[in-house]
């Protein structure tokens, strides 16, 4: 399903902030299906009924970290980067996890109201890549 342009822009901005977080740690992005080629990946769904983005931020760098510590680290970054857009920050639920943890939860089906944000959009939000001509 296609997202409304406003929601696509919101999803892209969230992905951009997470790419920047990863860049500060020197992590290399990869799509989940090409996991062996990188250090982190982002899977995002949107609950359209309640306008909430559920983001699974998968990285080997979270291994050995306390889940609360990992969440605080990413959430603090997200809030600081979206300080001028607190409403967008409030729309995001971040779940930092390792690839092993993601493999366990990725078998879960999406709940009914959830729409998956396409990987192209997430990849196009990388700062070095710049905006894709086909992406609003």
């Amino acid at each position, binding site marked *: 399903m296609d997202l409304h342009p406003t929601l696509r822009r919101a999803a892209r901005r969230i992905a951009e902030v997470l790419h920047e977080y990863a860049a500060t740690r020197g992590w290399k992005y990869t799509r989940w299906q090409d996991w062996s080629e990188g250090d982190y990946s982002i899977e995002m769904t949107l*609950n359209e*009924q*309640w306008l*909430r983005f559920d983001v699974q931020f998968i990285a080997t760098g979270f291994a050995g970290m306390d*889940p*609360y510590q990992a*969440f*605080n680290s990413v*959430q603090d970054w997200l*809030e600081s980067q979206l300080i001028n857009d607190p409403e967008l920050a*409030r729309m995001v*639920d*971040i*779940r930092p996890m390792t690839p092993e943890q993601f493999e366990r*939860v990725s*078998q*879960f*089906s*999406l*709940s*009914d*109201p959830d729409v998956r944000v396409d990987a192209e959009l997430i990849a196009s939000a990388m700062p070095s890549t710049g905006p894709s001509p086909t992406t609003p």
Partner: protein
Amino acid sequence: MAGRGSFASFGAPVQDLDLAWQERLEDARILLAQGRTDSALIQAIYALEIRLKERICRQLDLRQLPHPLEIHDLQGLLIVSGLSGRMEASTPLERRVRVNWNILRAYADEVNDQRYKPQSMTPQDAQALMDKLTNPQDGVLTWISTQP
């Protein structure tokens, strides 16, 4: 006559909801003690869902749950309960509760599929999930009970 889906049509009485969430939680504890891990967690998720519905009724001063709120979407129930914003606070406790909530919600997404699968959760994993719900410090149910 008001149809299903109308706010003029009501479901379970709030007193039943109050008893039901506590009974589902007790069921979860009994099942977990007997090693029925997946079934225990399903009951635990039901307890959380019903607890939120009970709170919504109290907050809105309703004697019964309106049919439109007979949903299983925990995210939506949290928002309608008025607790979503409070859970987003940056205090250490709310941050911990939010992490626990996110983990439980991910598991809840699986509950509907779980009934067709053999048991797969280890007792340790199941206990860890129960702890995220009932831990006296930062368990989600514990936290809900402390909210005005």
